[in-house]
């Protein structure tokens, strides 16, 4: 258990690191306005910007968090958001991500099996082409193809579609990984021994091979979670879903610096939560992870 906690502590350092780094990156920037045809550039806008970010104050980098805690609006203009709005948006995105995860696993399993079968036939090249096709297709293209038929329909249809399009590439990626691991494991001696001793192939797969493939799968979950959440940004934008990705993109476009700082940090925290879950799962299912540090 100690190793899990150690890893968690390492990951947790990431959160304040991101918070402070993004804050100082943003605070360093000059304030610019892109207004047109208007004569005055207001000095109080600059003042409100400095207030919003706590620039020039001791411990100013805590200001966005202070505002968040007090339930005040983050950001300088009417575009600012409060903590509860942020949480509501985040819950929507996480929901889409959670829908996408089983979908990605389904894709992965399906692709791994099909690829193993293709490998021996004349379709072998497809094993390379399909991942390239999945990877080379930015999420917004399938999202746009689906958008006209699902946007403004409600009944979770846009959410499902968003989950579907974001899960394709992570699913195929996982599938390639699992397929490779499966193949390596299947060619090992212990499998031949088990089969030679008369065990059914299904039992061998379940009892001996899968537990050895699982760690490879767990290793890939982190990047896949990142890809799912980042992919949902584009899907949300196209499918008209008012969630965290939309909020983030708009905050960047409107230069709502405090919102960007808080949202980036929230995102990093979310990834820490995911990696904690992965570590706990690994601890539970992989005896090697318990023994290695004992």
């Amino acid at each position: 258990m100690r190793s899990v906690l150690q890893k968690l502590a390492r990951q947790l350092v990431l959160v304040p690191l991101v918070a402070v780094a993004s804050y100082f990156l943003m605070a360093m920037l000059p304030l610019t306005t892109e207004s047109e045809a208007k004569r005055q550039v207001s000095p109080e806008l600059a003042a409100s910007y400095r207030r919003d970010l706590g620039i020039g104050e001791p411990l100013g980098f805590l200001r966005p968090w202070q505002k968040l805690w007090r339930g005040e609006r983050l950001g300088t203009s009417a575009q600012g958001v409060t903590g509860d709005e942020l949480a509501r948006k985040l819950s929507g995105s996480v929901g889409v991500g959670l829908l996408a995860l089983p979908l990605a696993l389904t894709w992965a399993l399906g692709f791994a099996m099909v690829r193993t079968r293709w490998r021996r036939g004349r379709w072998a090249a497809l094993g390379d082409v399909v991942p390239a096709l999945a990877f080379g297709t930015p999420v917004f293209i399938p999202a746009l193809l689906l958008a006209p038929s699902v946007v403004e329909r409600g009944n979770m249809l846009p959410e499902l579609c968003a989950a579907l399009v974001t899960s394709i590439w992570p699913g195929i990626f996982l599938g390639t990984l699992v397929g490779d691991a499966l193949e390596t494991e299947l060619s090992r001696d212990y499998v031949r021994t088990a089969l030679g001793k008369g065990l059914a192939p299904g039992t061998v797969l379940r009892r001996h091979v899968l537990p050895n493939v699982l760690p490879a799968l767990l290793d890939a979950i982190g990047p896949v979670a990142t890809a799912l959440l980042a992919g949902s940004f584009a899907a949300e934008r196209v499918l008209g879903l008012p969630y965290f990705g939309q909020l983030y993109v708009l905050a960047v476009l409107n230069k709502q610096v405090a919102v960007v700082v808080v949202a980036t940090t929230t995102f990093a925290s979310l990834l820490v939560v995911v990696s904690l879950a992965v570590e706990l799962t690994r601890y539970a299912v992989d005896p090697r992870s318990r023994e290695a540090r004992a």
Partner: protein
Amino acid sequence: MNRVPARACFGLLLLVGLGVLSLVAGRLFPEVLASTCPLGEDPMRPDRTVCELAFGGLWVSLAVGLCAGGLSTLIGLIVAAVARLVGGAWEQALLRGVDAVFALPDVLVVMVLQLAGQSLADAGHSGGLGPFGLMVASLALVGWAGPARMFRNRLATLEGQEFVAAARALGGGGVHVLRVHLWPALRPFALAVFLSRLPTAILTESTVSFFGIARMEPMSLGRYLGTSYAALIYEGGARVVLPAWALLVLLVLGASLASQALSASPRKAS
């Protein structure tokens, strides 16, 4: 290791072919495409044909990918080499930092960096970086962590081998060993890492451009797709989007084939 595998050959050929094609069609003789494009004119920009825009975009995307991929590979290599040279607790600390950067999603960080760079440019402190330079710099700044991890692990593996131990025993210093003994063994791997960064950089750029955050001028393949997505929902839109999409997929296919084959082959040889 003497023979480059056929898949890598095919991938590299595909990449080089696309590069030459984009150079010839997009840069050298765009007027040929303007008059012969079978897909007709772009509905959003009636003065240009679909082919011109797609191949012109391919050229820009390739340039972004090559520069950003090369730069991030280089940064990764330097970080890994420094980590191995200093060793000990410093190496661990450096690796934690690398892990932290690696954990952040590319798209999100590039968006933040673009925002920062554009604010600086608006205020007149762009430092001579145009939209292209800014994009390459932000992609390189997020993309180095992966290569750094891979190089560091590779170096650790290589250093465990006998010829390195022998060189050390003969009194070879850290830098000497790295330069004379490790680098030649690392070269094909570095190429593979670089090739694996190429499509990632191109795709990240396309997604960020799609959001309208990057101001790439002339248009990259990603920005072209991003700005003409409205064409998808009109009749005949597919002819506009399909070529650009197909080029993107071919680019990724070439790079990933070459990269996989190159990174796998030395491992089997050793």
